[in-house]
């Protein structure tokens, strides 16, 4: 945690690449769509990583904030025809409110119990939003004709959100808050003895984390034009995948979630398209299977994730190329 320039040269190159990338794929809405999903997962992964990777509170229920964000954009539209675009802010705020309320319950729990508590809260929301048809239109979901046909503007919006989320985490981590998050993660009892109000700082971490998850949820509705409770509160497709994005990329690293998001989306697409149609069709059903194997591999051999164990990976690759010579 040295107090050098805010962004290193490498980081600026990454951000610049993100800026020009959609222009390279100007004529491929398909590629742009993938880029948009990658960015959305960067936001979700970064959000989870702040709470779990940096603060040690391993949430198994990030779908709760994602879903609340999405519904905050969708419900005023459904009932009052208010533009869902307001949701980009309101969804974040609403997710913070829910995050804070859930925090009252789940922050009384530690370790695996916290994980289960968050999982259960997201599941309760999923069921409730599916059942309360008068409010949410139930399992029929909420439909919205998206604003633009072209994908480029969506990309730049979610790209800006992704960069903002990463900047916010970076900012926090070089301040007192960041040191306190890490202290809580490493040893909560020691942290309290150092004068750290652990409850307060867990809440701060939760507020920022749930905000970004909520914004991502609102964006999802605006971009996709459809949500129902099974999609946005999904245990597997949202909560669990968010965790896996973090783990594969590297928990407790700034760029880990971004790397994890890229790997996850590309892998999924690679298999879904049956390796660009080169492989037999049955391969397309295997993306989740392969992803699961990847998770097992990473936990066993790269516990720090791709970013966290980058030195290790480099060494391994280096050794290989040396022996080949």
């Amino acid at each position: 945690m040295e107090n050098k320039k805010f962004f290193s040269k490498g980081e600026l190159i990454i951000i610049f690449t993100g800026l020009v990338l959609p222009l390279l794929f100007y004529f491929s809405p398909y590629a742009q769509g993938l880029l948009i999903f990658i960015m959305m997962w960067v936001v979700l992964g970064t959000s989870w990583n702040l709470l779990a990777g940096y603060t040690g509170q391993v949430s198994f229920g990030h779908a709760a904030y994602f879903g609340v964000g999405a519904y905050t954009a969708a419900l005023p539209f459904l009932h009052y025809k208010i533009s869902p675009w307001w949701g980009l802010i309101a969804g974040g705020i609403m997710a913070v409110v829910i995050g804070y309320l859930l925090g009252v319950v789940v922050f009384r729990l530690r370790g695996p119990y916290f994980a289960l508590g968050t999982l259960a809260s997201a599941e309760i929301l999923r069921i409730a939003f599916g059942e309360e048809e008068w409010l949410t239109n139930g399992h029929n979901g909420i439909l919205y004709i998206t604003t633009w046909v072209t994908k480029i503007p969506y990309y730049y919006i979610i790209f800006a959100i992704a960069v903002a989320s990463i900047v916010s985490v970076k900012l926090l981590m070089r301040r007192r808050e960041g040191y306190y998050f890490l202290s809580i993660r490493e040893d909560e009892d020691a942290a309290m003895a150092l004068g750290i109000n652990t409850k307060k700082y867990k809440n701060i971490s939760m507020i920022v984390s749930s905000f970004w998850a909520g914004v991502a949820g609102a964006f999802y509705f605006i971009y996709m034009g459809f949500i129902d409770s099974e999609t946005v509160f999904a245990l597997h497709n949202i909560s669990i995948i968010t965790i896996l994005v973090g783990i594969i990329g590297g928990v407790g690293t700034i760029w880990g979630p971004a790397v994890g998001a890229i790997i996850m989306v590309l892998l999924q697409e690679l298999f879904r398209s049956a390796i660009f149609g080169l492989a037999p069709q049955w391969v397309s059903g295997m993306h989740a299977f392969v992803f699961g194997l990847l998770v097992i591999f990473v936990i066993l051999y790269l516990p720090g994730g791709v970013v966290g164990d980058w030195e290790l990976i480099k060494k391994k690759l280096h050794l290989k190329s040396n022996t080949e010579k």
Partner: protein
Amino acid sequence: MGILTLNKVTKNFGGLTAVNKVSFTVEEGEILGLIGPNGSGKTTIFNLINHYYPVTSGEIIFKGINITHKQTHEIAMLGIGRTFQVVKPLKRLSVEDNIMAAAFARETTFAGARKVAREVLEFTHLDHVANMKAGALPIAGRKRLEIAKALATRPSLLLLDETAAGLNPSELDEAIDIIKAIRSELGITIIIVEHIMKVIMNISDRIHAIAFGTTITEGKPEEVAKNPTVIEAYLGTDYH
């Protein structure tokens, strides 16, 4: 009136009374030794002072404030720092970052916290390992880091729980010097728990002895060392 007063403090763990109506006062600027055989309740007393556990009965007054029911972090902010007998380093952070995390108790800026951390690193002779991960430190370093973290919170009272255990003779001398300097140079009041007689007799102004959670005696080191109950309960017959 002293800086810290325990008034008939009692702690029950289920059926076990770990601390039984213990009362004592620590004067400002003093080093008070707290001794007792294994399992007599010394660590528990520390855990009660900083409210790691709630007391069963009795009260604890620090600088005129009743802290009996205050939370751990509030007590730390009021100025009681402590070390843990079973050390609690922030393992994946560097030694310096460990101390910085503690320094943020009184500092709001990165630069301010770092300045404090550098001072403390030097004071505790940890500067040469500043960039090492705390989890990689050998035991002597970890014990020292406990003291360093506590110091970085700028306490006016420091609770040291067996910070000299497991050290070799030269490390021990260094530790004694540091503890003495904490009082003489930083003016911090200390309660020290230690099994090593050389340390406790050498450092303490006064000693409070307990056994089975109950006070046996209190007094000057040489008086306590002569007390027959202490010898029987704690020092054993082969103490000379």
